[in-house]
């Protein structure tokens, strides 16, 4: 057994712990909001008025897919770079600076969102403090400027984090001029390249259009343009969530299985493919958007299908590594080796179950990606079904399972309640299947997503079961997930305070069966991949963007912010459900 991470790198361990702590807090609030939604939508328990549902929904989205995932990512990546390069950052002040920026950004955005709970929110920067715009913040929905400022600080923080890791790698390279980039660091650097290329889109969207508009500096904007910029970033961001999970699957999972990674070169190829293919596909979220020609959408659909390749490669490599591990542990036969895997270990079992759910969710992703069949599921409950199998489980469950392995190394404390932890990950697995199965089924018959009141009085053409049954199943799944999330947080908390104990965990990652020397050096030449990626982006986006701008104008065809038009609309619609929501919105306005 080697030295623990916290003993070798106490300063870096502190940063990682802080990042994880922020992530866990976000997970706790997000899970609470999740179960509130599940019970509210299904009309089982309503603790808030329906208009407040959208405050909760915004919080759920932002805290889980921005705060929880990305704070975990920066913590994990800080660990990965430090551990695999065997050295800390060049200057720890930069490290704390990005952590500080990300945290203050989060705090600002959170204040703006949570102000939605107030009956009488204060006026800040010229408008009411609120941000009920959901995590996609589509214009003309408008939030208080504080929300956007928070997002910008957060994103700039992640940019600095990337710069920090590049700098660390660079000075390592000066000392090791001929060495290949260690795999975990390679994964970190490639993820960040993808992130730089894509997050520029959302930065432009906010800084050039949405923020000035929310401050009243510009009178209008072009919603198609801001949406397109958002989704230019919005597809790669799903890989920003996923790649840290991949890092754990490629490095930690084979080790936990008792073996070694099958192929290091294949892992490198996969991460490079994500740089190249993840950015030119964002328009597949906009199949139903008017103002973008079908031809572009068709090209994007084709690109998207290519994106399946790296995920299939991953499934192959990771399962092969697990089988190798199982055979090292004495497993044999065609399928009997499965029994030899360490199922009692919550870190292993959690990651494996997450992988199973990911495979299943991947197929539902193919449905979303198909231009024609997308029309069936678009904006229906199917989509949150997909979201929860992918980021909500493949990523979130992997992060929780990974925590059971990492937190002891970061604190020097033994994991509390290993068997309870196993129950926790299994509970998440069952809960997610209950919840997402009902979401998929509900979506197929047209139940809308993002709605506090989805049970309008028309008869759905139900294919399987009945509407009350779908609702009950959704609620049961949501409650199981909530219980599981709370169990996780309690175990981590107890572990953090489990001071006088020795962890039983071995942090060494064995080398791959087929190492980097089996692959051409060009894989490590990051400049090549950046250049190709930029060309692909230009090809995919130059025409659609030019089209959108020439049609709608840079600053748009006079689109005002959404709440301004509400008063008139609400009086027209006051008899309908939508009208009631809008009216309630106006009430909170005044």
């Amino acid at each position, binding site marked *: 057994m080697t030295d623990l991470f916290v003993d070798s790198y106490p300063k870096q361990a502190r940063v990682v712990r802080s990042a994880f702590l922020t992530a866990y807090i976000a997970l706790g609030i997000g899970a609470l909001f999740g179960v509130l939604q599940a019970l509210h939508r299904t009309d089982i328990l309503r603790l808030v008025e329906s208009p407040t549902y959208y405050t909760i929904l915004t919080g759920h989205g932002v805290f889980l897919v921005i705060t929880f995932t990305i704070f975990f990512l920066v913590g994990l990546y800080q660990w990965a770079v430090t551990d695999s390069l065997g050295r800390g950052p060049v200057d720890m002040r930069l490290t704390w600076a990005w952590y500080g920026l990300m945290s203050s950004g989060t705090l600002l955005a959170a204040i703006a969102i949570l102000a939605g709970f107030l009956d009488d929110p204060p006026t800040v920067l010229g408008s009411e403090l609120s941000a009920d715009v959901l995590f996609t913040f589509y214009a003309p929905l408008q939030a208080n400027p504080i929300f956007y400022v928070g997002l910008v600080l957060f994103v700039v923080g992640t940019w600095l984090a990337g710069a920090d890791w590049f700098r660390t790698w660079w000075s390592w390279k000066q000392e090791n001029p001929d060495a290949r980039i260690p795999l975990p660091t390679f994964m970190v650097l490639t993820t960040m390249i993808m992130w730089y290329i894509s997050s520029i889109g959302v930065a432009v969207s906010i800084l050039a259009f949405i923020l000035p508009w929310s401050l009243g500096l510009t009178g209008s904007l072009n919603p198609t343009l801001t949406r397109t910029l958002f989704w230019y970033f919005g597809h790669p961001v799903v890989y920003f969530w996923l790649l840290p999970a991949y890092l754990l699957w490629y490095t930690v999972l084979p080790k936990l299985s008792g073996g070694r990674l099958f192929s290091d070169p294949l892992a490198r190829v996969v991460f490079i493919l994500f740089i190249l293919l993840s950015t030119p596909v964002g328009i597949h979220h906009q199949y139903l958007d008017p103002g973008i020609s079908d031809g572009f959408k068709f090209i994007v659909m084709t690109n998207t299908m290519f994106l399946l390749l790296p995920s299939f490669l991953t499934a192959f490599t990771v399962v092969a590594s697990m089988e190798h591990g199982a055979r090292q542990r004495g497993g044999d036969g065609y399928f009997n080796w499965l*029994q030899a895997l360490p*199922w*009692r270990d919550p870190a292993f*079992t959690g990651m494996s*179950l997450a992988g199973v759910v990911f495979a299943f969710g991947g197929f539902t992703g193919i449905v979303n990606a198909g231009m024609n069949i997308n029309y069936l599921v678009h904006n229906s409950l199917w989509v949150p079904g997909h979201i929860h199998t992918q980021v909500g489980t493949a990523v979130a469950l992997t992060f929780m399972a990974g925590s059971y392995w990492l937190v002891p190394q970061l604190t020097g404390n033994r994991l509390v309640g290993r*068997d309870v932890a*196993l*129950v926790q990950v*299994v509970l998440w*697995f*069952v809960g997610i*299947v*209950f919840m997402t*199965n009902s979401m*998929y*089924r509900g979506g197929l018959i047209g139940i809308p997503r993002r709605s506090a009141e989805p049970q309008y009085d028309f008869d759905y053409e139900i*294919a*399987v*079961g009945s509407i009350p*049954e779908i609702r009950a*199943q959704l609620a049961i799944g949501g409650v199981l997930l909530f219980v599981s999330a709370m169990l996780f947080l309690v175990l981590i908390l107890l572990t953090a305070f489990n001071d006088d104990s020795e962890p039983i965990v071995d942090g060494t990652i064995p080398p791959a069966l087929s190492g980097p020397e089996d692959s051409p050096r060009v894989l490590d030449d990051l400049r090549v991949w950046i250049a190709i990626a930029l060309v692909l982006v230009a090809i995919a986006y130059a025409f659609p963007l030019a089209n959108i701008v020439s049609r709608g104008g840079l600053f748009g065809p006079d689109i005002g912010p959404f709440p301004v038009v509400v008063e008139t609309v609400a009086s027209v619609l006051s008899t309908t459900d939508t009208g009631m929501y809008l009216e309630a919105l106006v009430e909170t306005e005044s």
Partner: protein
Amino acid sequence: MRTSPAKLLILIAILLVIVVELRTVLAFFDVELTVLQGIAVGIVGIALLLVWAFSPLFSESDQ
């Protein structure tokens, strides 16, 4: 015992998952199970798993 408690727990979880998803899949072939039938299949399945895990008949073949 034929298997370990951890594996038994996971097998039960997988069984529940299969029951939930299979009900949907079967409906595409016009085989519609009611909720109660689904629950019944689940209970019988779990019972069989438990019998398999604990029955002395099987433990002879324990490795």
